[in-house]
């Protein structure tokens, strides 16, 4: 008998195994939904798939009577705008600060401990302050995402820079590189693959902060919508929205993973088991 850790599935089996849990969840849900409907035809907790598809189709195609916009698209656009701006700003700050902390001992001595302390502040505890300072508009939501994920990015990238062998930095100097040239040609390219990995890990928290801030004060957005219709127990809206949010996050994650492997093939040469 081979050890369990040595038994790996083939290609076809892998696909089948991957689909299995999904199918199982769908089946359990369908059975539960049918069960509840049989007991109470007005049940709202577990709407059947047909009803959810119906509602989702309406939200995705028909303009809202009040605003004249297609609800799902308007919500998605509003949320994605906040998310992408937040991620972009956090990335830029994280990259600049992370590299500076990682390569410049003076900067590390000055700001390292500060970053360490700041990263321990729960970002959600700052949300009231952000609402007070930046108002209830777009800015406070974007700032929450930035505050939420930047400390992680800074620390992660500073550690990545710290993990570059000292030999390489010395080598760069013996090739005549200045600090700036070393950063640009040696450090930055080696940090970029890890930046993308760190961004992938940040997607979850970023969505968390987005939806939280939208839930509290917004007039459009994916988080705003699900918290709005919660009052009417509109599970036929909430569940498709949750699925849609998940799909967006999943596709973003996949795209980043592909980007990392495509653009930085040198970093993935047999480095990992899977």
């Amino acid at each position, binding site marked *: 008998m081979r050890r369990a850790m040595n038994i790996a599935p083939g290609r076809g089996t892998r696909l089948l195994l991957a689909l299995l849990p999904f199918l199982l969840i769908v089946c359990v849900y369908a059975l539960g939904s049918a069960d509840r409907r049989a007991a109470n035809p007005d049940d709202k907790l577990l709407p059947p798939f047909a009803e959810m598809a119906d509602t989702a189709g309406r939200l995705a195609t028909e303009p809202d009577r009040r605003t004249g916009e297609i609800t799902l698209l308007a919500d998605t656009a509003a949320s994605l705008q906040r998310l992408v701006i937040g991620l972009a700003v956090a990335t830029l700050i994280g990259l600049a600060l992370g590299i500076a902390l990682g390569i410049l001992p003076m900067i590390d001595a000055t700001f390292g401990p500060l970053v360490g302390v700041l990263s321990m502040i729960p970002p959600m505890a700052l949300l009231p302050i952000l609402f007070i300072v930046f108002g209830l508009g777009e800015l406070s939501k974007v700032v929450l995402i930035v505050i939420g994920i930047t400390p992680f990015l800074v620390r992660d990238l500073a550690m990545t820079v710290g993990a570059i062998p000292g030999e390489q930095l010395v*080598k760069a*100097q*013996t*090739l*005549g590189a200045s600090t700036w040239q070393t950063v*640009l040609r040696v450090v930055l390219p*080696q940090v970029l693959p890890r930046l993308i990995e760190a961004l992938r890990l940040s997607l979850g928290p970023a969505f968390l902060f987005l939806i939280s801030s939208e839930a509290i004060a917004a007039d459009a957005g994916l988080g705003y919508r699900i918290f709005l219709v919660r009052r009417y127990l509109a599970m036929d809206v909430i569940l498709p929205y949750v699925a849609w949010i998940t799909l967006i996050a999943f596709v973003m994650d996949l795209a980043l993973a592909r980007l990392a492997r495509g653009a930085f093939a040198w970093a993935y040469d047999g480095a990992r088991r899977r």
Partner: protein
Amino acid sequence: MSAITVRDVWVEYGDQIVLEALNLDIASGSFVTVVGPSGCGKSTFLRMVLGQERPTRGRLLLDGAPLPAEPGPDRGIVFQRYSVFPHLTVLGNVLAGFEFAASPWLGTLFGAARRRAVEASDELITAVGLAAHRDKYPSALSGGMQQRLAIAQALAKNPKVLLLDEPFGALDPGTRAQMHDLLKPLWRQHGMTVIMVTHDLKEAFGLGTRLIAFDKLRHDPQAPGRYGARLTYDLDLTRRRPTPVAPVPRANQDSHSGTSTLPLHPRHST
């Protein structure tokens, strides 16, 4: 010209003395091999010449001027590992040396300047026998090929001094012999001073024009850090037999006599 002068250099880490009373004159164009047991300060000496470390006392001069306190393009280095940039191809690794010098802000060359630099790089890549692999990343190269690349990279700056820190320590004997055949003509051709730290005595005698050995002559069991390593052997290898270069500095209370106990010869050494 690239003569190195070491005058009464001591290296101490706190209470621990690593090197003591080091005096050396290395002539321009010599190939100096440095041997000694682990922890005797060979690498410390190399790092000092490199500019990564500073002597606690004493002076280090390159052509009569104090050595800069940080690594620079006048001193090339090949480490045992991690010498090449993993994110650049073979060509990119060699090209980098030319690009740093010519493009202070972008560190990248374009157009005609780039073509010239690529030509010069290709020449070096061919010289170390990597022409067929010029577009590969280091992860696709064997250990020996990576060291060849590191040498080509260092030669791009035409350094006065080339420092080698156990460069072939991780290679198999066959590859090591190839590297020796590669290195010697390159050293002659570029006319630079080479300082090579090695554990392999045969290599040290075979390659060098001068061999220096560090070792701790005195030992205090109560305070292992009290005494540092000194220069114990300094041999001229260009004569018919290895000949002591200068009287070796001795510790006062140390009684065993000096250079007459030198049975070192390549045939006996490994």
